[in-house]
């Protein structure tokens, strides 16, 4: 026997959640998570992503709107009755039960025979690579192992939707990459619908099919990782996903789907993104500025303020007349020292017009 998938879609229709009569945690939010997809809810603290996740789980009830899992309206259904499993940030393993009992908990609740639930628990532990650990107590496991037990506990129930609430926050950086790859592999192999909450945008970009960026109780933008990184809808998204240098520019003219834009001494051609001639904002990724110590070339004049070595790239802070620029360069051999004059030009990717919100 193996773990099957009963993946279902998740639909939010105009959902609002208000705490204490006045604090609007989620404001008229609508989205669809397709069956079998991993969608990440991304945003800064307090944006409403965890509340949204808890409303899918049934741990919070929406004040307005509808929540559907598959075709079923679950808006008023309590957490106990929903076919949704959750992996918590603190793992939430029962400390007085051993690993085997923890993983089999959901199965025992449903009244399954002891022997069968134990067998299924072993299947779940094999999936996360912890077979043989059944007799251990959670306090005898490392953080990464505890998290994998929590994932196994959620998986063995073969839920319609699997929820992750910042599951990697308590792990160290190296372990985070490894565990997030494992979670993604399991989700893909089993074809599970997963909704993932994190504030770490690198994590979101790495594991998601789609990302929903939330800010102040509303959705700022949703799309594939590439769409969000290369075509941010507004300044907030541009700055939240990856770093972005926001500079003023002039949109001179539009023709076809391109626009001619003037940034100080530089002229570029960019997709116009429905903007009109006039004052506009440009978001430039740090890796899309090119620094040259040859001050005779055309470019924006600047002086290097700070220079940091980060092993696989250099980080520069450059003062120019269009502002303080944050530049990342992959050349770690030929570095530019502080107080050196440079000319700044643009690469042909990672530069985009951004709507003024």
């Amino acid at each position, binding site marked *: 026997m193996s773990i099957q998938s009963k993946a279902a879609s998740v639909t939010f229709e105009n959902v609002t959640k208000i705490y204490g009569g006045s604090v609007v945690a989620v404001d008229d939010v609508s989205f669809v998570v397709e069956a079998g997809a991993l969608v990440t809810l991304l945003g800064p603290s307090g944006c409403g992503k965890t509340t949204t996740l808890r409303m899918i789980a049934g741990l919070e009830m929406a004040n307005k709107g509808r929540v559907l899992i598959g075709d079923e309206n679950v808006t008023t259904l309590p957490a106990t009755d929903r076919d949704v499993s959750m992996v918590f940030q603190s793992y939430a393993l029962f400390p007085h039960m051993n690993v085997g009992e923890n993983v089999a908990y959901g199965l025992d609740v449903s009244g399954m025979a002891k022997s069968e639930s134990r067998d299924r628990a072993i299947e779940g532990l094999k999936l996360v690579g912890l077979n043989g650990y059944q007799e251990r*107590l959670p*306090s005898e496991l490392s953080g990464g192992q505890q998290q994998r037990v929590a994932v196994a506990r959620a998986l063995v129930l073969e839920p319609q939707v699997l929820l992750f609430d910042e599951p990697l926050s308590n792990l160290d950086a190296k372990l985070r990459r490894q565990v997030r790859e494992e979670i993604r592999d399991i989700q893909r192999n089993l074809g599970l619908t997963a909704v993932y909450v994190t504030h770490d945008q690198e994590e979101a970009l790495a594991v998601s099919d789609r990302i929903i960026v939330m800010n102040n109780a509303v959705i700022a933008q949703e799309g594939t990782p590439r769409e969000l990184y290369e075509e941010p809808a507004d300044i907030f998204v541009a700055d939240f996903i990856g770093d972005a240098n926001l500079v003023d520019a002039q949109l001179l003219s539009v023709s076809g789907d391109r626009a001619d834009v003037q940034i100080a001494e530089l002229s570029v051609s960019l997709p116009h993104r429905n903007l009109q001639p006039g004052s506009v904002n440009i978001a430039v990724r740090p890796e899309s500025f090119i620094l040259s110590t040859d001050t005779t070339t055309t470019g924006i004049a600047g002086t290097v303020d700070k220079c940091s070595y980060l092993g696989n790239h250099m980080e520069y802070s450059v003062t120019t007349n269009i502002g303080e620029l944050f530049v990342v360069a992959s050349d770690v051999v030929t570095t530019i020292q502080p107080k050196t004059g440079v000319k700044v030009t643009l690469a042909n990717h990672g530069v985009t017009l951004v709507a003024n919100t």
Partner: protein
Amino acid sequence: MDGFHHCGLLHDFVNTWGLDHTFTLKHYITAFSVSWGEEGLLWTGAAWDSFWTTISIATVSAPLTAAVGLLTAYILVRQTFAGKDLFEFGTMLSFAIPGTVIGVSYILAFNIPPIELTGTGAILVLCFVFRNMPVGVRAGVAAMSQLDKSLDEASLTLGANSWYTCRKVVLPLLRPAIIAALVYSFVRAMTAISAVIFLVSAEYDMATSYIIGRVENNDYGLAIAYSTVLIFVMLASVLVFQGLVGERKIGRREPEKTDTPAQNQAA
């Protein structure tokens, strides 16, 4: 303090303190003699009647007190409702009221219909439950506050209802608080005097009021023999409750174990 206790214990083993200091066990025999009659064991000692009454009342009220206290603690920690702070303050009130006041007010309240409880065992149990409940509440609140709410939520999302969660997740982790509440309420029920003195009757005489009666009649030897026995009974009860409730096993990280191949592989 030690010398005081030693002095007290010595009392039992002498004939008449201050008068005749010959060593004797006659006070214990008067209190707790047992003999064989036609229908089996006969409790012929003077103290047995009040002793069994006290034990049974204490045994009935201890679990009730612990249950009421812990249930109240659950409500205080996990639920929010209007007037919660006032309710919490109210649960502590019965601690603050002097026992005599409680005793008298119970008589006044339960002496006439519709609820007539004076002279019954029920009034004693009721008095103990509400007098000693605050300890269960405080111990429960302290223990439950340390339980991460996500444990409850994990159990709910895995399909368990509140009762199953309480039984399988919350209560096992509350064992130390349960033991504290049980032991405290049992011992307090055995040793209470200020409220009890008003609520005892011919049928339901408690050990403490019996002892006071003996002292008033200058029968110090019997009184102290009885008190000594009560001390040992209560010590034994602590062990019994610990054995019944069991210890909470959540384990501790052990220092570095030697690597085994299985651990190496899985890590």
